[in-house]
C-alpha cells in the first residue's frame, strides 16, 4: 500500500503534487474569447463592409483592424520572447529533480494552449478562407477571411510557439542542454507559414484567378500541417527523459521523495 501524500506532507518536507492548470484554462479562455469575437465581427462586418476594398468603409472596418494586428502582434512577440530570455534561469544545472518535473509537466500542459491556437489557425479559420473565396469574387489580399487568418490566428499561433520554445530552452534542463529537433519543427516550424502566405498571394495575384482550394499553390500550408508528426517525436523525447527523471522523484512504491 502506498504511503499517502498526507503522511508525507505532515512531515512538512515535501510539497504535494498539484497540476497547475489555471494558466492552461486562462490561455484557452483568452484564445476562445479572441476567436469568438473575431468570428462575431466577421458575421456582419464581412458582408456589410468587407466586399469592396475600394470603399472607404472597408478601410474603416477592416484595414484599421489589419494595421492594429500587424503592429500589436509583432510587439507582443518581441516583448514576450525577450521576457522569456531575460528572465531565464541562470542556474539550470542546480535545479532539483522535483522542480525539473514540476516545470516539465507545466510546460507540457501549456502545449494544450498551443494546440488550441493551432486548431483555430489550421482548422476553423483556414477552411473558412475557402468558404469566403469560393463564394465572393476575389478582392485584394486583404479580405475579411485573410485579415483574421493570416494576420491574426497565424501570428498568435507563432507567438505561443516561440514562447514555448524559449521557455523550454531557458527553464527546462532537458531542452537547454541540447536543442530538440522535433521541438524546433513543432513550435518554430510554423513560422515558415509567413513566407508561404507571401507565395500564396503572389500566385493569386499573377496566375490563379479561379478558386480551387486544392491546388499546388496552397501546398506549402499542407507541409506545415505535417509538423504534427514531429509532435509525436517530441512526445517520445519527453517520455525518454521522464523515465530517467521520475525515478529521482518517486520511490519504488510511487510516493514523492522530494
Amino acid at each position, binding site marked *: 500500500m502506498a504511503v499517502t501524500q498526507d503522511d508525507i506532507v505532515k512531515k512538512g518536507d515535501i510539497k504535494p503534487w498539484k497540476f497547475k492548470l489555471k494558466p492552461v484554462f486562462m490561455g484557452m479562455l483568452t484564445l476562445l474569447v479572441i476567436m469568438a469575437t473575431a468570428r462575431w465581427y466577421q458575421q456582419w462586418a464581412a458582408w456589410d463592409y468587407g466586399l*469592396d476594398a475600394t470603399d472607404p468603409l472597408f478601410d474603416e472596418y477592416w484595414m484599421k483592424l489589419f494595421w492594429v494586428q500587424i503592429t500589436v502582434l509583432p510587439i507582443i512577440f518581441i516583448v514576450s520572447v525577450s521576457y522569456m530570455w531575460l528572465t531565464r534561469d541562470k542556474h539550470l544545472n542546480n535545479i532539483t529533480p522535483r522542480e525539473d518535473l514540476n516545470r516539465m509537466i507545466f510546460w507540457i500542459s501549456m502545449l494544450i494552449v498551443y494546440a488550441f491556437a493551432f486548431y483555430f489557425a489550421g482548422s476553423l479559420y483556414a477552411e473558412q478562407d475557402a468558404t469566403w473565396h469560393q463564394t*465572393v469574387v476575389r*478582392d485584394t*489580399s486583404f479580405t475579411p477571411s485573410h485579415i483574421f487568418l493570416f494576420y491574426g490566428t497565424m501570428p498568435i499561433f507563432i507567438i505561443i510557439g516561440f514562447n514555448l520554445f524559449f521557455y523550454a530552452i531557458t527553464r527546462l534542463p532537458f531542452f537547454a542542454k541540447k536543442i530538440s529537433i522535433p521541438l524546433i519543427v513543432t513550435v518554430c516550424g510554423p513560422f515558415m507559414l509567413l513566407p508561404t*502566405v507571401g507565395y500564396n498571394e503572389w500566385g493569386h*495575384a*499573377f496566375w490563379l*484567378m479561379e478558386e480551387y482550394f486544392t491546388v499546388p499553390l496552397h501546398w506549402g500550408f499542407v507541409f506545415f500541417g505535417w509538423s504534427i508528426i514531429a509532435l509525436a517525436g517530441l512526445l517520445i523525447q519527453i517520455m525518454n527523459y*521522464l*523515465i530517467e527523471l521520475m525515478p529521482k522523484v518517486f520511490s519504488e512504491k510511487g510516493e514523492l521523495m522530494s
Partner: protein
Amino acid sequence: MNKTTVFKKSVLIFLLFIVSTVVYAHGERNQEPFLRMKTLHWYDATWSIKNEAVIQVNDEVILEGKVHFFSRWPQVINKPDVIFLANATPGPVFIREESYLNEVPMIQSTGVELGNVYEYKVKLKARIPGRHHVHPMINVESAGGLVGPGIWVTVEGNADDFVYSVETRTGQTIDNLGTYATGNVYKWHAIWGAIALFWIIWWIRRPLLIERYLMVKDGQWSKLITLTDIKLGASLVVFIIGLLIYANMITKEAHKYTIPLQGGKAEIDKKPNPNEGLVQVKNKKAEYYLPGRTVTIDAEITNNHDLPVHLGEFTSANLRFINHQSAAGLQGVDEGYPSELVADESLIIDDQKPIMPGETRRINIDATDAAWEVERLSSLLNDPDSSYGALLFFYDTNGKRIVSEVYGQILPTFLD
C-alpha cells in the same frame, strides 16, 4: 501627403513586397482594365425589379439582356470555350432557379464564339435578408467571373421562410432542397462517430503513456494487448464490414435509380448577326487623361449600310456614355438602369452629322465621367498592356441599332 500617410504607404508597400502581391480593386473591379474592356460587354440589361427595390424572401428576380464576347479577346486568358452563366450575388443569398443563354438551359457549362452576342436570362429567388448587389455574370475558365451591371436589392423577411421544393424523376417530392437527406447524413456520421469513440475510450480508460512506454520497452505485449482486446478487435472488424454491407443493401432498396453527377456540356449556337460589318470602326488614336476621367478616341468610321447612321452610345466595362443629341441613344437607357453606370455628361462627338451610306469619316469621341476613376479604369497606367476595347452603338434613320467593336492601343496623357 502628411508624414503619417507616407509612413503608412511605405509600410504597406514594404509589406506588400514581402507578401509579393499587387493591390487590385474590389471583387467586381478586380481585374485589369484591359481585361475588362476586351472581354464581355453587357447591354440591354434589364432586371424585373427596380434599382433599390425592396422585396421579400421567396420573391423572384429575372435578369435579362445581351452579352457580347469581344472579338479581340486578351491572349492572357483562355478563349471562352468553357464558360458558365451565373449571377454575381454575395453567395446563395439568392438561389438560381433557371438560366438560359440563347434560350438553351445553362445548368452545365458551355462554350461560345468570339465576336458574337448572346442573350442571357437568369431567374433568381431571394433567400437571405439583407441589402445585396445583383448582377449577371459569366465565369470564364482561367479568368474567373466577369461581372455585368448590377442593381441594389433589399430583401426583407425571414430566411427560415425560404422554400424551394423539387420533384424527382422517381416521383419523390423534395420539400426543401437545403435540408434534403441531411438527417440521414447526420445519422450515419453519428453511428460511425460513436463506434470510433467507443474504440478510443476502450484504450484511454487504461493508463496510457509512461506505463505503456515502459511496457513496450520491456516487451510485455501480452499485457499491452490482451486477449480481450484481440477478441474485441476481431469482432469489430466483422461488425464494421457487416454494417457496411447492411447499409449498402438498405440504400440500394431505398434508391433503386440513381445517376452519376452530370458533367456534360451544354451546346448552344450563336445567333446570326444580320448587322455584322454594316458599320466598321477603326481606332486611329485613343487617349486617357490622368487623373482618369476622360477617354478620347479618334476613330475612322465606314458606313457600309444603305441608310445614314449616327453614333448613339459608347460603352465599355459596364460604363455607358450616351450621345444626348441622339433621341435613339437616349431611348436606349431604361428608366431603372443603375445611374452610376451611365455617365452624367454626354458623349461628346466633334461631328454630329449622320454618316452617309458609303462614307468614311474620322470623328473624335470624348467620354468624360468620374465613373472611370471609381471603376479603377484609370489604373490602365499600371497595366502591362495599354489597350482598350469598346462597343459603339450606331442608329440608322429607321432607328435600327448597329453594334460595332472598336479596339486599339490607348495612350496616357498627364494633366497636372
